């Protein structure tokens, strides 16, 4: 295994050019915390970006941050935290789920994975907060896209494509992100004992209200098998449905009262606030009920995205049919499913069912042999798959970058 430790952006260009010349695919790695996601890549050359870790500029009053792509998430979070700001897309920390070291991960890996947290329903995902990028394409050329301002339609919005592309299009060397002020206050309403379908209805009602709900999750009773951390306190009465309200004090109180009244037919809502509430949402964001160290640690985990109002019925049936466990975020639009091990981790069954509701599923945790055997990323229709291959080629015609990471059959 050849690990190339990059010192600066110029090195990235040089390494990719050399890889093109040598017909040697590269695996792109920040801290490598998510190397176990995606199809196993077919290469023994690793491009390690962790030394590209500087902060280029941070202007809290502009709500703009520019950093090198290998900058550690931990450092960046404490930097923006010091100005009481955060990433509005609430990116997840995958370490509990994947069983990797905590306190690791780079901003480049976070953007490339594009795994947004609970606030996505209100504030969007990584793609909505990446304003600009400097990167090296599979042509071995340094290019930039986007800018350093929030509003920009100059040229194609390549940032959208690069966010969530798992390093298959270009190696990011620098990223500019939007940051947002943290909310002054947060309250979570907790409804007890709803089944998945009723909970889905409650969440839809809350998200269809004017109360600016910034988190809507449902944990069936089974999620508390492990009774892990912050969630333990919630589970004593069975399933819980959680609705988060954030903002200035008086507003949050008003909205919490109004929403409680509006949802009265679903039962009486308890509340948890501020640090307790934050801890609960971190646990949901990071999917701790399915933690690698927990009772379901050996089960494959799927990340299913579907129209929110279809989530409850879909998840309940999936759990019943497979004997698996599910938890819901995004008002039902995101289902995390831990399914009992089987030859294909139920991929065929799951995806056939999803076709009916126009949803899609990505395997986030699975063994190497499993990930070699099935499509980790959701397969597309022929037309879209062909277009995606052309898009990949337009950035990386020799398939140098993360070859085979997103597709079961290498495209070229």
């Amino acid at each position, binding site marked *: 295994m050849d690990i190339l430790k990059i010192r600066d952006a110029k090195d990235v260009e040089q390494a990719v050019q050399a890889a093109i010349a040598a017909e040697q695919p590269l695996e792109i790695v920040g801290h490598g915390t998510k190397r176990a996601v995606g199809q196993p890549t077919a290469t023994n050359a690793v491009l390690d970006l962790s030394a590209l870790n500087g902060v280029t500029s941070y202007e809290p009053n502009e709500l703009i941050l520019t950093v090198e792509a290998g900058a550690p998430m931990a450092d960046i979070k404490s930097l923006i935290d010091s100005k009481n700001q955060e990433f509005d897309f609430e990116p997840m920390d995958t370490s509990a789920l994947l069983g990797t070291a905590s306190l690791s991960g780079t901003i480049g890996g976070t953007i490339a994975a594009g795994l947004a947290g609970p606030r996505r329903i209100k504030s969007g995902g990584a793609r909505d907060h990446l304003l600009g990028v400097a990167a090296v*394409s599979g042509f071995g050329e340094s290019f930039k896209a986007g800018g350093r301002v929030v509003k*920009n339609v100059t040229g194609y919005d390549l940032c*959208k494509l690069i966010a969530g592309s798992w390093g298959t299009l270009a190696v990011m060397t620098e990223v500019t992100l939007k940051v947002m002020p943290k909310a002054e206050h947060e309250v979570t309403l907790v409804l007890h004992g709803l089944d998945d379908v009723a909970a889905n209805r409650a969440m839809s009602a809350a998200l269809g209200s004017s109360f600016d709900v910034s988190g809507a999750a449902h944990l069936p009773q089974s999620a508390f098998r492990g009774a892990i951390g912050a969630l333990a306190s919630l589970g004593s009465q069975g399933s819980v449905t959680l609705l988060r309200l954030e903002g200035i004090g008086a507003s949050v109180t008003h909205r919490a009262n109004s929403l409680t009244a509006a949802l009265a037919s679903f039962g009486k809502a308890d509340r948890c606030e501020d640090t307790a509430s934050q801890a609960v949402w971190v646990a949901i964001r990071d999917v701790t009920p399915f933690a690698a160290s927990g009772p379901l640690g050996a089960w494959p985990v799927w990340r299913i*995205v579907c129209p929110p109002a279809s989530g409850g019925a879909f998840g309940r049936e999936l759990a019943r049919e497979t004997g698996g466990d599910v938890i819901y975020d995004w008002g039902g639009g995101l289902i995390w499913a831990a399914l009992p091990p089987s030859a294909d981790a139920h991929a065929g069954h799951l995806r056939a069912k999803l076709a009916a509701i126009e949803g899609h599923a990505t395997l986030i945790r699975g063994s190497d042999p499993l990930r070699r055997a099935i499509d980790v990323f959701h397969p597309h229709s022929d037309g879209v798959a062909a277009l995606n291959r052309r898009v990949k080629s337009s950035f990386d015609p020799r398939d140098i970058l993360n070859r085979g990471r997103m597709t079961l059959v290498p495209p070229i």
Partner: protein
Amino acid sequence: MSIMMPVPDQAILDRRSSIVAALRAIVPGEGVIDSAAEMQPYESDGLTAYRQPPMVVVLPDTTEQVSRVLRYCHDNGIKVVPRGAGTSLSGGALPLADGVLLGMGKFKRIRDIDYENRTVVTEPGVTNLAISQAVAHEGFYYAPDPSSQIACTIGGNIGENSGGVHCLKYGMTTNNVLGCEIVLISGEILRVGSKAPEQAGYDLMGIITGSEGLLGVVTEVTVRILKKPETARALMIGFPQVEASGECVARVIGAGIIPGGMEIMDKPAIHAAEAFVHAGYPLDVEALLIVELDGPAVEVDELILRVEKIARDCGATTLQISNSEQERLLFWAGRKAAFPAVGRISPDYLCMDGTIPRGKLPQALARIRELSEKYGLGVANVFHAGDGNLHPLILYDANKPGEMDKAEAFGADILRACVEFGGVLTGEHGVGVEKRDLMPEMFSDIDLAQQMRLKCAFDPQGLLNPGKVFPTLHRCAELGRVHVHGGKLAFPDLPRF
């Protein structure tokens, strides 16, 4: 016309009558227009300084027809320019002499309203405002609100990634669309995204949005809708210097307040607007800042106090707070009508659209004033101040020889200044033909090559809307060539572990 368009292909023009006949076989009846008189309304879009009659106008009304028209054009090497309502301010829908103008105006049906999923599925010719109106009785709306929303279509909004005064808080088009049906130039019909909050795989929707009709023709759109905030109130704040209004904006954002909208108008814009709509704007101030706060009443009341305090600290000399919905709308009336209002005080105007970092507002304004003197042309400024998006309106008279060229040179200098201040050429109106030749101010040849390669993935022959966005056209084969550097030496002088 000072911008060169691709030279018309005489061989295509020679075949015009057979092309028209072939198109009539696909879109029957009135859907194909080829008389000069009837094509006239399609000669230009909102950038009226540029006019060009198309070879033929086609108005399909089914996806199947769009697909067949595009396949025919693809197979016959004919250029196609998609058009919504033709309100683009950058010439995105400017026809080509040897091209088909594909008008999407007949795609006027809203196909599905789903309050449970908070989505609307609509055809692309539906106007922006009509989407909000269709869901208003349930208290919902579609957030991006370009000032042209009565006329512009959702398809055109996708083309330009349009914004509006509320996009500071609620995002641009790209942040509010979930999926679409798109027809490629080959005629292939693809579905991208769905009612799900996120797409699978590459974010194709993100790249289609803002692609100015160069990647495909959108035939259906899925947007997300929001419940209207409980209340909205606005402050109208006057400042004796424009700089102070800019400072106030920076401090509001710095204090962690993200208003629903935050707009500045300078003195010429205030006067033009007041004369037009009589909104009660103060006429003795240099800048007027309108800040709208929305949410529950308790929140709005609290934030109004905070903004008021910041404004007074920044030296505001007048300050009014709306006490009724009627009054709020009146505050906005002048701002929303700023373009037509300026149209009344000057025979012609050019609307620019650069974005700068918010903090650079005072410098940018000073530069615009200098340039105004240099060129001897007046300028009225309106800004989406919250996100640093400037709309200087350059006043000129096209009937005076040389003035239009002067106005364009002035505009180009403003946009260069935006880039110099760390900003960009366009915040919401798109590149089109207007800013096409300025692209190298912001992007290197390599940056542009990478964008054009993406275009090749959708349209390898370059038949969709050529002459827009990119200053020079390259063949896809040339763009796709990989330059192999330095023989087969693997990874020279990099540290290994």
